[in-house]
């Protein structure tokens, strides 16, 4: 039972459910249970969505049905995420165990680096996404460098990225248990 390197599958599961530390048999068992419940919720919601779409097709236009489908898909997605997050935090599976002060400081520093990287990734992803959207709806006929350098967009997404980084840092810090 000594600590071994996690396989890719285990790393994906830990990342998906936000589990830190050992992925031992208790956590495995609880994750299986949460996953099964999430699947049942997903199955029922998708069934209801499919059933209601059949009726909506005869009542609404195709465009409206598509809009309803898009929003119900988002609703189902956030319902599942909400359930998984609540279940994981209720069972304290996302807790980070620090064994002494050195370990605590090491984990804090690790989370700081992780949050800086997360904020940077968030900024880059959002800038790429909004650059593409701006490019597609370029009614002011701006050039590509103008769209990239746009001070307003960069400042807004820069502040958002800092906010995301700081929020995540405090969330992680809260999860560390000495």
């Amino acid at each position: 039972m000594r600590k071994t390197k996690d396989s890719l599958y285990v790393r994906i599961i830990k990342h998906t459910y936000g589990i830190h530390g050992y992925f031992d048999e208790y956590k495995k068992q609880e994750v299986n249970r949460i996953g099964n419940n999430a699947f049942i919720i997903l199955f029922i919601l998708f069934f209801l969505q499919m059933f209601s779409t059949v009726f909506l097709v005869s009542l609404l236009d195709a465009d409206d049905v598509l809009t309803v489908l898009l929003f119900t898909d988002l609703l189902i997605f956030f319902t599942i995420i909400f359930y998984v997050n609540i279940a994981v935090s209720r069972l304290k599976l996302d807790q980070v165990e620090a064994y002494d002060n050195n370990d605590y400081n090491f984990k804090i520093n690790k989370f700081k680096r992780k949050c800086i990287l997360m904020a940077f990734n968030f900024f880059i992803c959002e800038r790429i996404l909004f650059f593409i959207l701006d490019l597609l709806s370029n009614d002011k006929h701006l050039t590509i460098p103008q769209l990239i350098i746009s001070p307003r967009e960069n400042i807004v997404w820069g502040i958002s990225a800092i906010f995301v980084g700081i929020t995540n840092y405090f969330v992680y810090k809260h999860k560390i248990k000495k």
Partner: protein
Amino acid sequence: MNNKVKLIRVSKNLQQKDLALKVGISRQTLSLIEKGRYNPSLKLCVSIAEALDSDLNSLFWKV
């Protein structure tokens, strides 16, 4: 399931974190086992017994 894991761990001057590290489980899981709120697999019982230099009978049998 009641057990004597905590009793034997304390008698050996081991902290929860030390035993958890030795066995390769989280402190949370060990705490649940000690409280009898989680039934470990036979494999994990054997690992705990080995880490405590004890045996399954003394730890888990008819407590």
